[in-house]
Structure formats: structure tokens, C-alpha cells
């Protein structure tokens, strides 16, 4: 039955409710991210919450209003990835007393704003013209469209969500022997040498995302197998291995040491070559897309014929970029604590903004094709560039990491914004409304994420030496006896103190030490870049980016992603493309959503448990 009144899209209610949801997700996922080392994407979860609240509880939300809800909520949430991958390292380096909180907040907010304004002009190129898939964006659209998609599709979606959520819950139950393992070591089962990895993660999210990525999943599989089945065996044979593994072979490595070898090899070779390929591929992508980029920028300057403006104007973006740049400049100078002159701060801010643009493009391409993004690798390069400009002495680490945090926040915002705009494209949302909503609320997430990190540090400490630090604090405060009675010690946390290893901060700490030592392995970055550039220019744009990404990400998840891609190809071949789309997309979307819901639920439970215990 037709309804009266204006159609609800960008409404005050959806924005306010979304901001509250985004703040809660931000805090929970920041905490969980520092525990497990990666963050959980929030768009699908935000879409489910928005759907349930606006359409279920209030019975008034429209499809496009829920889209605005998930855009804002995921935007407020997503900045946590940029914060928890960078700022905690300053605590681990013992620089927490010298940090300027105003500078950190300002830098993070600058990154958030810049991330939105720089990616908006690329919407037409990436979504309309290149038609990148954005698996998470597709999954979110499937949820939003479910009311009108027909009973069959909605049923498939719900069953798939339930299945995925059940499977993941079985791996997370707090029992001694979980009913389902998170990883299956098939290589060990069939007697493969330990150095030839064949471990699959029980990640239905990866399977679903791989299915939606389609034949790009084959490329991901190629990159993963190239690293683990070609490069590692070859380097072991040649002795081109990190220190501590000289003389090891595929068989002699042993299953106990295989994991630590893979981690060390990633830092020694895979990650460096992989990040190089990503950069080379991204540069190739920019060169190929230059004509289309010019027309995309051109169309922003003028109103379209025969209709209202569909995107925010170039003037708004320029003003936003200007404000963001000034904030970044001031943050850089402030964070230097008197060690960074205005001239140096200006150079750093200019270089940072340029790198931010390139990194944003890279991340938009990688998430557009695979849903994965090399955030930490790009943040690492950002910090290295900043230290190159300002200096490698200890007094420049804080400003370098501060700018690095801004860039990392910006790139996570770019990826999220693009996925949300893809969702909007699929359901008919006006890009300008999503862009206005995002620009208006982008400043909210950064202080929440930064504040969460500070609260966690003051309450529980974090990092690889968390137990020692907590013990030392009790000694300083004169409460060590009470702490020991609760089971605490230099090697063990007391009861009720959550374990927060902050692994990404640990990796960044090692990287900063390498930069300070001057021993940056440029050769691997450059050769990787040449390979990435070549295949992207001569074979297919984006190829270098995808292979580079899959070379250093974990085999366990990338292989499953690749299997999802193969599944998509096979289903298309056997049953036809329409069947693969009609049946496969709701199922794959459900797998992603179910996984994300359980992970967020787990994060919230951890926060509540930690709060009760303390």
C-alpha cells in the first residue's frame, strides 16, 4: 500500500541512533582489536542493528534510511583500526608521559576528515566505472534489500547468517576442548613437511568474501601459494632466511617452529616484497585511470544536467581538505614538543597528505577487490617517511607516529566510505546524502578510539610485557601484596585483568627500531614495486595490488578466500551466472554477516567481563 509523506532517507533520528551505535562498536572493537590483533568491519553489523531498530522496533525506517544509519555507524566505528595499529606503540616505547593528547586527537580527527574528502572524488571511478565488487558492501546491500528481495532470498540470507554465527560460536565457547577448532592443519594430517603450510582457518567470512570476489579469489590464491609453496621452500633451499633459521629445511623446521618461521619470514621478505607490489600496482592503477580521474574531478565542479547535485561539490571537498590539512599541520607541530619547527611540520604535513591520498587509493582498490586492506603496511611506510623527513632520533618518534596515526585513520575511513558508497549504489542511495552524513560525523570516532586506548592503558596496561608492567605499577603504588593475592606476578596478570597483547603495536615497535638503525631493506620494496607495476600495466589493473596483499597475509585465511573464489567460478560454470548471483550472493552475504555479528558480540562480552572484574 502506498504511503504518504516524504520518503525518509537522511534523517536526524537515523544519524543520532547511528552515532550512538558507532560509539559503542568503536569502544568494543578497539578493545577486541588490541587483544586479537585485527579489527572487525562494522558495516554489516551496523546494517543489521539499523534494520532491527528502525524497521523492527520503530517500524518506520526505509531501506535508504537504514543505509544512512549503517554509513554513519560504520564511519564512527572504523577509525579504531587506524588508532589501535599506531598509537599504542608510543606507550610500549615508554613515551606516554611525553605524548600530547591534543595533538593525537587533532591528528586523528584530521585523518578522519581527510579520509572522507579525498576518497569522494574517486567514487565514480572506482564504483561506477571500474565496478569493483566490495564484498562487504554487497553483503550490506543484501541485508538492506531483504524486505523486497523475495522470501526465497531472505530465507537464504537468514539461514546463512544463522549457520555462520553457529559455527563461529562453537569455536569460541569458553570450554577446555572447543567443539570446533578455528584452524585445521591438513598438511600435518596428510604428512606434508612442516615448512609447506596447508592449514585452513574455519573462516566462513573469508569463504563468503571470496565467493563475492569471484575470479579475483584465484589471484589471491595464486599470491598465497606463491609465498608459502614457492617462495618459502625456495628461500629455505637457498638459505635466504631470517637470522635464527639458517640451515633449516622444509622438513627439519618442525611444526613447533613453523609458525614462528612464517612470522619471521614475513617480516624478512614476504611483507616487504608484498607491500612493494601493492605500491607498484597502485601507481599503475593511478596511471591507467588518470583520464577517468580527470573526468571524475571535472564532473564534481559542475552540476549534472537534468537533476539535482548527486555528489558534494568540489568547493566543499576543497574546504574540508584545507581544514584537515591545517589540523594535521598543527598536530604535527604540537606533537613535536618543540623539537619540530613549523617548516619541518609543513613539509611533513604535505608529504603526509600526499601519501594519505596514495594510501587511500590503494586501500580502496584492495578492499574493492578482496575486502582486505594493507593498513598496517601502509602505516609503517607512512611512519618511515615521516622519520625520513623529521629525523630518526627518539624525539621525532612521537610526531612521526602521530602523523602515521592520521594516515592510518584516513585510509581506514577511505575503505569504509567506499564500501558504504557501493552499498548505496546497489540500493539507489544518493551519494551526496551519504557523503554529507559522513562528513558531518567523521569527527566523533577519533576521540572515542583515542580515549579507549588511554583508558585501557591506565586501567590495565597492554603489550607483550603487560604482566611485568602491571606488577611494576602495583609496586609503585604500594598495592603489590593485594595484587599477588589475586594471582598476579611479574609473569602473570592478576585475576580480572584482561590480557591485551596489542600485537600490532609490537610489530610497529620492531619496525621503528629497524628504521632507526638505518637498515631499511629498500631492495625488496623496489623489486616488489617493479613487479607490481609491470603486471598491473601489462596484464590487468589491480593485479599487482591483489597479489601483493595475498603474499603476506596469513595462508589460513587467504586459502579459504581463494576457495570461495573457486567455488564462485565453479557454480557459475555448472549452474550459470544468474544462479550464482541469485542464490550465491545471499548465502555468501549471510556468511559474512553471521561471522561479523558473533565477533562483535564477543568483543562486547569481553568489555563487559573486564568491567565487572575490575
Amino acid at each position, binding site marked *: *500500500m*502506498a*504511503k504518504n509523506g516524504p*520518503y525518509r532517507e537522511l534523517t536526524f533520528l537515523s544519524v543520532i541512533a547511528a552515532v550512538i551505535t558507532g560509539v559503542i562498536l568503536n569502544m568494543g572493537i578497539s578493545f577486541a582489536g588490541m587483544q586479537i590483533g585485527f579489527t572487525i568491519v562494522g558495516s554489516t553489523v551496523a546494517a543489521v542493528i539499523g534494520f532491527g531498530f528502525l524497521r523492527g522496533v520503530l517500524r518506520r525506517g*526505509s*531501506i*535508504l534510511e537504514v543505509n544512512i544509519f549503517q554509513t554513519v555507524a560504520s564511519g564512527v566505528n572504523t577509525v579504531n583500526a587506524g588508532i589501535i595499529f599506531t598509537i599504542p606503540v608510543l606507550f610500549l616505547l615508554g613515551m606516554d608521559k611525553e605524548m600530547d593528547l591534543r595533538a593525537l586527537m587533532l591528528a586523528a580527527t584530521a585523518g578522519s576528515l581527510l579520509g572522507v574528502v579525498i576518497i569522494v572524488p574517486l567514487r*565514480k571511478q572506482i*564504483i*561506477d*566505472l571500474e*565496478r569493483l565488487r566490495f564484498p562487504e558492501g554487497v553483503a550490506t546491500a543484501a541485508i538492506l*534489500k531483504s*524486505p*523486497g528481495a523475495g522470501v526465497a532470498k531472505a530465507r537464504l540470507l537468514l539461514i546463512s547468517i544463522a549457520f555462520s554465527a553457529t559455527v563461529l560460536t562453537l569455536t569460541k565457547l569458553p570450554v577446555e576442548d572447543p567443539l570446533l577448532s578455528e584452524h585445521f592443519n591438513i598438511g600435518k594430517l596428510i604428512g606434508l613437511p612442516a615448512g609447506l603450510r596447508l592449514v585452513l582457518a574455519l573462516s566462513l567470512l573469508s569463504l563468503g568474501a571470496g565467493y563475492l570476489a569471484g575470479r579475483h579469489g584465484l589471484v589471491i590464491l*595464486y599470491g598465497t601459494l*606463491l609465498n608459502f609453496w*614457492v*617462495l618459502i621452500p*625456495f*628461500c629455505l633451499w*637457498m*638459505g*635466504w*632466511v631470517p637470522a635464527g633459521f639458517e640451515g633449516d629445511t622444509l622438513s627439519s623446521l618442525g611444526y613447533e617452529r613453523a609458525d614462528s618461521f612464517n612470522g619471521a619470514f614475513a617480516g*624478512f*621478505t614476504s611483507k616487504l*616484497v608484498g607491500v*612493494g607490489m601493492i605500491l607498484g600496482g597502485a601507481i599503475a592503477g593511478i596511471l*591507467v*585511470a588518470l*583520464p*577517468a580521474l580527470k*573526468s571524475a574531478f571535472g564532473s564534481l565542479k559542475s552540476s549534472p544536467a*537534468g*537533476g539535482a547535485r*548527486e555528489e558534494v561539490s568540489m568547493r566543499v571537498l576543497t574546504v574540508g581538505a584545507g581544514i584537515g590539512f591545517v589540523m594535521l599541520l598543527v598536530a604535527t607541530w604540537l606533537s613535536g614538543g618543540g623539537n619540530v619547527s613549523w617548516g619541518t611540520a609543513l613539509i611533513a604535513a604535505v608529504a603526509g597528505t600526499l601519501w594519505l591520498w596514495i594510501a587511500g587509493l590503494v586501500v580502496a582498490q584492495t578492499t574493492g577487490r578482496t575486502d582486505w586492506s594493507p593498513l598496517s603496511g601502509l602505516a609503517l611506510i607512512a611512519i618511515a617517511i615521516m622519520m625520513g623527513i623529521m629525523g630518526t632520533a627518539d624525539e621525532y618518534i612521537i610526531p612521526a607516529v602521530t602523523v602515521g596515526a592520521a594516515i592510518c585513520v584516513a585510509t581506514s575511513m577511505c575503505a569504509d566510505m567506499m564500501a558504504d558508497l557501493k552499498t548505496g*549504489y546497489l*540500493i*539507489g*542511495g*544518493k551519494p551526496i546524502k551519504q557523503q554529507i552524513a559522513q562528513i558531518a560525523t567523521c569527527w566523533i570516532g577519533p576521540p572515542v578510539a583515542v580515549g579507549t586506548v588511554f583508558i585501557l592503558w591506565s586501567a590495565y596496561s597492554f603489550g607483550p610485557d603487560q604482566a611485568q608492567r602491571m606488577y611494576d605499577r602495583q609496586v609503585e603504588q604500594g598495592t603489590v601484596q593485594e595484587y599477588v593475592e589475586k594471582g598476579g606476578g611479574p609473569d602473570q596478570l592478576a585475576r580480572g585483568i584482561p590480557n591485551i597483547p596489542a600485537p600490532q603495536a609490537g610489530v610497529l615497535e620492531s619496525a621503528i627500531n629497524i628504521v632507526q638503525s638505518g637498515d631499511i*631493506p629498500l*631492495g*625488496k620494496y*623496489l*623489486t*616488489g614495486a*617493479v*613487479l607490481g607495476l*609491470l*603486471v598491473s600495466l*601489462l*596484464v590487468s589493473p589491480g593485479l599487482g595490488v591483489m*597479489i601483493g596483499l595475498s*603474499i603476506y597475509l596469513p595462508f589460513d585465511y587467504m586459502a579459504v578466500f581463494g576457495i570461495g573464489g573457486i567455488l564462485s567460478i565453479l557454480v557459475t560454470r555448472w549452474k550459470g*551466472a*544468474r544462479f550464482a*548471483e*541469485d542464490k550465491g550472493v545471499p548465502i555468501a552475504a549471510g556468511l559474512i554477516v553471521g561471522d561479523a555479528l558473533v565477533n562483535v558480540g564477543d568483543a562486547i562480552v569481553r568489555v563487559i567481563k573486564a568491567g565487572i572484574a575490575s
Partner: protein
Amino acid sequence: MKLLSNALIVVGFCLGTAGAAGFHEPTDPEYKAENPNAKTEEWALPLFIVGLVGVVSGCLLRRAHDRSQRAAEDSQTGGLKGVFKGQLESIRDMVIELDEKKNELSTQELCGRIDKMFRNEYFDLTARNEDYARLLGFTDYARVWEGVATAERQIARTWSMATDGYPEQGIEELPLARKNLEHACEVLATL
């Protein structure tokens, strides 16, 4: 020829990556003693260069194969451009019909027709967008495809608004989508 070109690219890339893995200070003490200024392992650079040659050769072979295949396609029914034109005009005509009949259709019929168009004609068209980009060159492709993509979004908007119970507001998007598709057809006709 396609198999050979792909094999060259895959193997060449593997060799290039293997070579790249050796770009660090040599670990072999004997080689290091003989070449104190060496910055890479002994076989790193040769492997890397062989890999690059393999990738480039494979790409050149593949381009030659694609060119001959396109020529063969062009000699048949109007070629790929003819296919593109036919698909685009078919969608344009469907949207024109939808626009002209929008006040006569029920919400269910309207959404059903849009669903069918998206699952069939639009799906077939957009599934080949990379082929059309290669055919026309990216700049000309962008000039045509801009209208196709904007129209797709506008038609999706009609569907969403109609599904939510606002068909009168939803069908206001149809004339805009029609205009975009007509413009896309006009641009393609000039290329």
C-alpha cells in the same frame, strides 16, 4: 597461445618474486668474502631479470592473441561493439517502456520488472564491462558508462522507494534514468 602466454606470466612472476627475495645482504660467507660490496644474494638479480623477461614476453604474446581474437570477433556479427550497442539499446528501450507505463503499473509489477531487468539485461551488460573498457579505451568507455551506471543507481532507487511503499516518489527517478541511457546510446553511436 593463450595458455603459453599465461604460463609465461605465471612462471615469470614466480621467478621475479624469488629473485626479489634475495635482495638483502648475502648470507653465504664464501660469496660474501669474494664480494664484500655485494648488496644482494648471488642469484637474486639474474632470477629477477629472467622473471621480468618472462612476464613481459607473456604479456606481449597475450596481447597478440587478444588482438587476433578481437579481429575474428569483429568479422562476425558486428563484433563486440555491436554486442555492446545491442545490449545498451535493449535496456534503454525497456526503461523507456517502463517510464511510459509507470502510472499504469502496480508496485508489485514495477518492482518485478526492475528485478527482471537487473537479473537479465543489466546483468549481461555489466558482466562485460571490462571487455568494453578494453574495446573503447578507458576515456571513451567512461563517457558511455557514466550514463549506464547512473541509470542503474536511479532504477535501483525506484525499486527501493517502491518496496518501501513510496512508488509515486520512486517513479520520479525513471525519466532521469531514461535520459542517462539515451545519452549513453548517443555517445556510443558517435564512437
